[in-house]
């Protein structure tokens, strides 16, 4: 359609379009800057940047070469995030189902407000709470898991110290991402067509029968989208991990042991005293994290949007 706009309108449209495009520009700028600064490291280290095991700034005289790879921290990012998802998703589904189908009308409103507020709790508070309130409970569970399941490599713990482990950090991360997954899931469950649910009851079914037959299939892709959003948040989490995990630079898949880390906390830890070359490595690490979370979030957005459109 070809519309002719007046001069005033054209200026208006230019300004507005420019303003709207800033978000695109900012996003691109971030990516480009990190890449530009970090590319030297990618060139120097090659694939070892991802797969290696060391992070050393090297000595000033160059005798000990600088070697930077994010391998252990990337693994740590994925491990803590997966632990978080493992606990958060079932709990969120239970929470969402409870709010939509079981909670009495009077309580439901309060719960929804509480949910919104919970999604706004800064991650700093989770770190504080994790350290001061939750850690004794988490250590108890870790000890028990090790006691009964220690034969399984994942739950092995040589040193017998259970605090500040990926397991505990993962649990607190789970608590952190439950609000957003529950929110998205509840949204999608509330959009289940009323007649389908009513039909299940009219046929003589129970509440769980209706949920299983209609609500869960209907909400499946929405819940997946929500889980991916939660994953995106867990991947990039800095402060809580920094406070709750004993940051040790090595691959650690014994999640009950007291060592681990993730890329975000690596950046936070090393940033203060980094040499210029090391700083570039941190930027390269930041770029990898940026790509990772961006991909997950874009996929999550696509899934959630597609779900909404399909159900409209």
């Amino acid at each position, binding site marked *: 359609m070809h519309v002719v706009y007046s001069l005033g309108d054209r200026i*208006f449209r230019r300004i507005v379009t420019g303003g709207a495009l800033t978000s695109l520009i900012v996003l691109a*700028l971030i990516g480009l800057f990190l890449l530009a600064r970090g590319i030297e490291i990618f060139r120097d280290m090659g694939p070892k940047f991802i797969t290696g095991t060391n992070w050393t700034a090297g000595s000033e005289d160059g005798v000990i070469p600088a070697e930077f790879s994010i391998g252990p921290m990337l693994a740590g990012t994925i491990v803590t995030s997966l632990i978080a998802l493992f606990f958060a998703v079932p709990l969120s589904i239970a929470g969402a189902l409870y709010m939509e189908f079981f909670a009495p009308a009077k309580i439901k409103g309060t719960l929804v407000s509480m949910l919104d507020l919970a999604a706004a709790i800064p991650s700093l508070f989770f770190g504080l709470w994790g350290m*001061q309130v939750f850690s004794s409970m988490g250590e108890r569970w870790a000890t028990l898991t090790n006691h009964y399941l220690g034969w399984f490599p994942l739950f092995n713990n040589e040193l017998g110290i259970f605090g500040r482990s990926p397991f505990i950090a993962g649990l607190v991360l789970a608590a952190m991402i439950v609000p957003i997954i529950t929110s998205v899931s509840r949204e999608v469950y509330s959009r289940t067509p009323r007649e389908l649910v009513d039909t299940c009851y009219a046929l003589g079914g*129970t509440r769980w029968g209706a949920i299983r037959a209609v609500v869960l299939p209907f909400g499946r892709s929405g819940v997946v989208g929500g889980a991916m959003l939660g994953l995106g948040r867990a991947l990039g989490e800095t402060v809580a991990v920094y406070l709750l995990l004993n940051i040790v630079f090595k691959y650690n898949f014994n999640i009950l042991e007291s060592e681990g880390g993730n890329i975000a906390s690596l950046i936070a830890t090393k940033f203060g005293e980094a040499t210029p070359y090391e700083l570039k490595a941190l930027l390269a690490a930041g770029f990898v994290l940026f790509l990772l*979370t961006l991909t997950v979030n874009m996929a999550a*957005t696509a899934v959630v949007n597609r779900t909404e459109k399909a159900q409209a």
Partner: protein
Amino acid sequence: MSTTSDLTIHAIEATPKQPWHKPRAEQRRDAMVYLALAVVAYAIVMVSGFAGPDGFALVFFVEVLLLTILRSRGIGKAKSTNAIISTVIGAGAFVAFAPWVSIFISLVTKGFQGLYFGYLFDDMRVTTPDDELNMGGVGHAIVGSLLMVLIATVITLPLGILSGVYLTEVRGRMTKMVRFVIQSMSGVPSIVAGLFIYTTVVTYSGTYSGVAGALALAVLMLPTVARTSEEVLKLVPEDLRAVSYALGARQWRSSLMVVLPTVRSGLTTAAILGVARVVGETAPLLLTVLTNNEFKFNPFNGPIASMPMYVFGMLQIGTEYSIARAWSGSLVLMLIVLALFVTARRLGGKDKR
């Protein structure tokens, strides 16, 4: 068929009832049963290896589950499955909600002791973190946070509104792209935003500064403000725009003078929600602005305090009093976020007419 007779007799009054709900007596009896189960669970926790509130919760849950299974004998598989799974779902929801409730309660009970009358007005210039709790305060942190948030809002609110206007009024070719990018951008990790501002603003200006911090916060705030602005502008009825055009107004006049004013409180809501989103962020400030101990009103040069960095610093020191200060600082911060949310909700209701 039989029918009511003479309709000049008015409808016979009857009292509304809800017979599908359990009668009071039975509800009370159920409550007694659960209370008894709780007492038993407590006793078990006292004498056995189960410890702490989690031990209690687990024992109580197992008891309730057993009771449900007992009650569901002989009523058919579908109904007993329903009863048991309903119990499990309730327990799962409880566990999902428990951490936040615990955080809220901890904030109040542990944060309360660090509060005293001057807490909001004093700074940490002369007080060390280990001093008695009736000295020192977060005044400087509040000022710092306020400054940075203000600068961030001044930057993001116009940009967010422009995005919203673009998506709802101009609706150009990039609409899908812009919307998609805004939604994806809300997933950028806060540390990456901090890193970006560090490598640009801090490096080139040669100093940590409140402005750098504000810019990092702005990056995180923009998606929230843009999204809320779009939602608010979408609510403007199409007829309003149609009337404006029918009267001969150009698009820009129509947008500025007709559409935007009707959503004034909605746009304020967008700003408030954006602020609530970033006021508690720590990671970006770690890299761009650090912190300091005294009141400071110049955001352009040198580190400045903020609420999250205050809490973070206190937490890292780790002594009894500094941790107490961390809790009270967190309590103040949470109250600020709460106040913002309540204001946003009130304003959000105003636009609806």
